[in-house]
């Protein structure tokens, strides 16, 4: 359905481009914003434009940050010998929440996916190799990539590439997440968990 107002139509069109958003939801949000007071809508639009303006990437680990290098890379408490390789900045926050990992990160900014025209040069694999060569003292890489086909392929590729550089490459285990009720696990994961069962 074409909307009556061109301005509203523009807003809906932009909102509908966001991931996970259909045209119907976009219309609902646009109508919701119309009902808000000016101050609230201004704060939202400022936050969105600041996002692109103020946020930069750490020149070491490529995590998003307000200042370069990022707080993790500039912290003296971090073990510089171990680097955890993740796909996206959001993965860093997930791992940081555990407070278990004391090394540094390397954010690839994606995974290898020929269908999306993303090869090793389109993500920060060369930068990772540079970090290893530059004498940062990296002795272990922990691959914390998603277990889908693209994450696996990226893992294989990195392992093959950095193996000859004398770096120990490990990967995190995938299975049933702790604290998740069994009934919420998808069947295929549960099947694999049964196949990989261990003696108690």
């Amino acid at each position, binding site marked *: 359905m074409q909307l009556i107002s061109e301005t509203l139509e523009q807003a809906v069109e932009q909102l509908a481009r966001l991931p996970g958003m*259909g*045209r*119907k*939801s976009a219309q609902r949000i646009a109508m919701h914003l119309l009902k808000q007071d000016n101050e609230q809508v201004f704060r939202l639009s400022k936050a969105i434009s600041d996002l692109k303006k103020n946020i930069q990437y750490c020149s070491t680990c490529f995590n998003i940050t307000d200042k370069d290098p990022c707080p993790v890379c500039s912290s003296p408490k971090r073990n510089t010998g171990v680097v955890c390789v993740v796909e996206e900045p959001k993965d860093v926050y997930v791992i940081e929440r555990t407070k278990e990992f004391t090394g540094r990160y390397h954010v690839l900014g994606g995974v*290898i*996916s*020929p*269908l999306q025209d993303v*090869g*090793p040069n389109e993500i920060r694999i060369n930068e990772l190799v540079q970090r290893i060569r530059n004498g940062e003292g990296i002795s272990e890489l922990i691959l914390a990539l998603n277990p*889908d*086909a*693209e994450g*696996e*392929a*990226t*893992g*294989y*590729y990195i392992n*093959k590439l950095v193996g000859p550089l004398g770096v120990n490459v490990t990967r995190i285990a995938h299975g049933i997440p702790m604290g998740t009720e069994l009934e919420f696990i*998808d*069947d*295929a994961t549960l*099947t*694999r968990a049964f196949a990989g069962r261990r003696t108690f």
Partner: protein
Amino acid sequence: MINTNISLTNFRNHEHTDTVWGTHVNIITGPNGAGKTNLLDAIHYLCMGRSFTSSSDLYVVKQGHSGFLVKGSFTGNIRSHFEISCSYERGDGKNLRVNDSPLERHADLIGLVPVVLVSPDDKKLTGEGPAERRSFLDSMISQTSPAYLDDLIRYRKIVRQRNKLLTDLGHQPDRLEQMLEPWDLQLVETGSRIVAKRASVVRKFRDYMEQAHEQLTGSGMRPSMTYKSNCIDGPDLTGDNIADGDIRPAYSQELAASVKKDCERRLTVIGPHRDDLVFFLDDMELRKFGSQGQHRIYALALKMAQLYYYTDALEDLPVFLLDDVFGDLDARKTDTVMNMLLQHPGQSFITAAHPDKISGFTGIDDQRIFEYHIEDGVMQQLIRGDDGLST
């Protein structure tokens, strides 16, 4: 599993239809175009999340509307009562829900209500190329094994990624080899699991096929089938209990040996997506020797065998859908099929254009048969009384 009731809104020619089903044999009659098949298609949506008559959800929406909704209640052994709904809205896509909570992935629905479908399209199973038979096998196994379905989805993705690499880097052999490796490792790993699972299911399935074919024909002719994979040599993988580990080495070799051919065709030519299931009748290859009648019965026997296989393999009985199956069968075969349905404890749904086709059965007062008639968009259950049928 029993589908106790179903409700259709703006689904094909059904503006709004609400029906309570019988727990055993349900017969739906009515003139052509009245919407009999659409009712079966609606049940199919709740089991498989898609239509069996149309490739796109969009075509299923009633003309002049923007979406459709199908809702049904089920009772089973493992889950005693639950509701499945499938809604589609142009622009927003499809939503599957179980007890009102949305399913994250379409794949999570598959197998919840196992279903076996007999349709006029079944003639492709014995008459057309291997793709039809692979799809039969994949659909049959997926409903019994979520891990298999997961592997299939993953495998297809890897093949698509690999084919894109062949297209992009076909002219740079060294670079291609380096880039293919991470995908090939996964291809062989996932593909071997698929081949091993198919072989083991076919091995068990053969017995059910013999049983079903004999019940249908009484001919003493013996149906059999072999699973042929291009990943590994040998005429038949179903002879021994084969594991994915036994397949991997040969598969890797075949894949490596075909890189040149793959590059030329920009397609992955080795793998379970090119395998075939070959049908035999008394050791003669059906595709080459069978008569039209033998093909028809063979295809029907495959579906009956699927029903019996599920009956043994699954905790819950499958829902059995038969679309216009009697149009092609003579009176004696119709009787045989009806008897098989009545002897099977599960629920079935049959469409028929002419009620007299099954009159031998609708004539008897069998409490287990529910009849429905649909005409001019109105559906009615037929009640059998002493003085004949009334509505």
